[in-house]
């Protein structure tokens, strides 16, 4: 898991560099600083479990098992990308690994995750659905509609909120006077916990408990992970709205530093940890080289995949 933390951290760093160099179309959102949530939760998921995520989803997708190169290739818009360059950073889908999708619409796919959970229930399968979302998403009505449906139908669904205290440039206290997202689960009697999302050990243990409860048929669970957005809202955000103190606290909170301290204390030699970091760096660099060398989509294929049925395609206006 230490390796995966580094993979995500360095992946996001690579995206940031490529974005600065003008190689990333659009405005990617980085999960730097929030890696422990992705890694701690996804460690308990199988391929068949459905994962839905938000605009800040690179980490979740990598932790779920998606290929580094194909993910990066998508983010820089290549034909070899997960979605053949159609989706991009905010619309990553990788069905082979149960990554059912990211979305650029805040809270826009929470109910879709409930649908995946309902499908599993209706088909008598044992897999579950996980939805990652930010604290800002709790302002959206569909979040509450989905909590109601999930609790009413006892859907096998894990809600994971990454509460980083910000929605874009506005801090949480201007969005709600409800301090903790976990409070929203209470009226529905959905089991919930607010945890330290920067400590991988904590996330891992609490996610285990939550997922065990869901797999045991007790219905949905909401995990609120308090975390810290180390980067700006999007690549290029100058973050003038954040105080120096706040940004300084970052290093203290860094989930990688935190896990490193745990591991060192547990007696893992520093050389082993350093080697992992170097390996991850090499992996990312290799993946990046290959992704950047990959072919760009052929403009002639732009109308592919609007519809399944070729007859509809042929005559559509």
């Amino acid at each position, binding site marked *: 898991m230490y390796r995966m933390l580094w993979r995500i951290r360095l992946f996001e760093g690579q995206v940031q560099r490529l974005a600065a160099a003008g190689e990333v179309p659009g405005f990617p959102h980085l999960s730097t600083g929030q890696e422990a949530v992705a890694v701690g939760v996804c460690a308990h998921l199988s391929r068949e479990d459905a994962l839905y995520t938000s605009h800040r989803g690179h980490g979740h997708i990598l932790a779920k098992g998606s290929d580094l190169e194909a993910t990066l290739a998508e983010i820089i818009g290549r034909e070899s990308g*997960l*979605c053949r360059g159609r989706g991009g950073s905010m619309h990553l*889908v990788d069905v082979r690994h149960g990554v059912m999708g990211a979305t650029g619409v805040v809270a826009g796919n929470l109910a879709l*995750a409930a649908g995946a959970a309902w*499908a599993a229930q*209706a088909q008598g399968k044992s897999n579950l659905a996980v939805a990652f979302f930010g604290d800002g998403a709790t302002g959206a009505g569909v979040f509450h509609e989905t909590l109601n449906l999930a609790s009413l139908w006892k859907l096998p669904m894990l809600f994971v909120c990454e509460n980083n205290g910000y929605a874009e440039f506005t801090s949480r206290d201007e969005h709600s006077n409800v301090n903790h997202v976990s409070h929203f689960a209470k009226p529905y009697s959905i089991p919930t916990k607010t945890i330290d999302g920067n400590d991988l050990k904590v996330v891992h243990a609490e996610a285990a408990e939550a997922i065990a409860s869901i797999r045991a048929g007790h219905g949905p669970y909401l995990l609120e992970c308090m975390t810290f957005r180390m980067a700006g809202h999007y690549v290029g955000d100058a973050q003038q709205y954040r105080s120096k103190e706040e940004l300084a606290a970052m290093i203290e909170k860094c989930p990688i530093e935190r896990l490193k301290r745990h591991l060192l204390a547990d007696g893992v030699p520093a050389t082993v940890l350093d080697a992992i970091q170097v390996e991850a760096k090499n992996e990312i660099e290799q993946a990046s080289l290959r992704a950047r060398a990959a072919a760009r989509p052929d403009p002639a294929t732009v109308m592919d995949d*609007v519809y399944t*049925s070729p007859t509809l395609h042929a*005559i*559509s206006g």
Partner: protein
Amino acid sequence: MAIHTFIDILKRALDEEMTRDASVHLLGEDVAAGGAFGVTRGLADKHGATRVRNTPISEAAITGLATGAALAGIRPVLEIMFIDFATLALDCLLNQTAKYRYMSGGQLTVPLVVRTQAGAAGGAAAQHSQSLETFFIHIPGLVVVAPSSPIEAYGLLKSAIRLGEPVIFIEHKRLYTMKEELPQDFALPAIGKARVAREGTDVTLIAYSAMVQTALEAAKELESNGISTEVIDLRTLLPLDMDTISQSVSKTHRVLIAHEAVQNGGMGAEIAARIGAELFDELDGPVQRVGCPFAPIPFAPELERALLPGSHHIVQVARRMMGLESV
């Protein structure tokens, strides 16, 4: 041969599809109780409460849920009680449902049918009477179907469920009590193909949904005026079957489009624009539209009648097109 109302025949189509394919599930507000119009009455008893599921009044979430279930291999038939409230589901339909296949580079499909009720039916007023199909024909990835009679509804609903694309299936409230005999041999209609509901040589009259019945009435009256009207029932609004339209226009050289939706920015605009561009040389005169004037649907019956397009409007415009009436 049995005679069926529109309501009964929809139920029959749903029942048969649920029996044929275990992945077909019904979802919606009050559907287990039959829905607002009784279309699904009895289906929960027959197919079980898991496959016919009442939902809370959460149009956004149930549309998302149905979409997510469709992505996971279920074939949901979702009822949105009135098309007026489909706007609550529109973010999902526009930004998720319709785009999923494309955005995922073809990895996923959304085999979903959204049934919804549209149109004015006497005093339902501004929030329960609208015809909002135009919102959907502007969304790449969706298919839009609007049957014009019980037989049509039977075949089109079955075809829609089997299609494997996200289909908006629009049922006009005024058709619900209409009765028709269902023929024994019955080939399911292809989605995307219009039909000629009545042949004629002077004017092509294009309509869909309940307006087809109005158009047929008008055609009868026009016949007694010596005008031979060809009525085209579009069946599918998206994609538009220009072949059928083109064949008819090459014969009549005059086109009148009628729908209940507000004329400005309505379905008729697209049809008229397409005909104007693709069949310009075939036209003997301007393509005419009959639609709702630009106002919400008022409550009082006198006002509602004054606003809604009816067969007399069609007759009047068609007569004018044939030079029988001055402008």
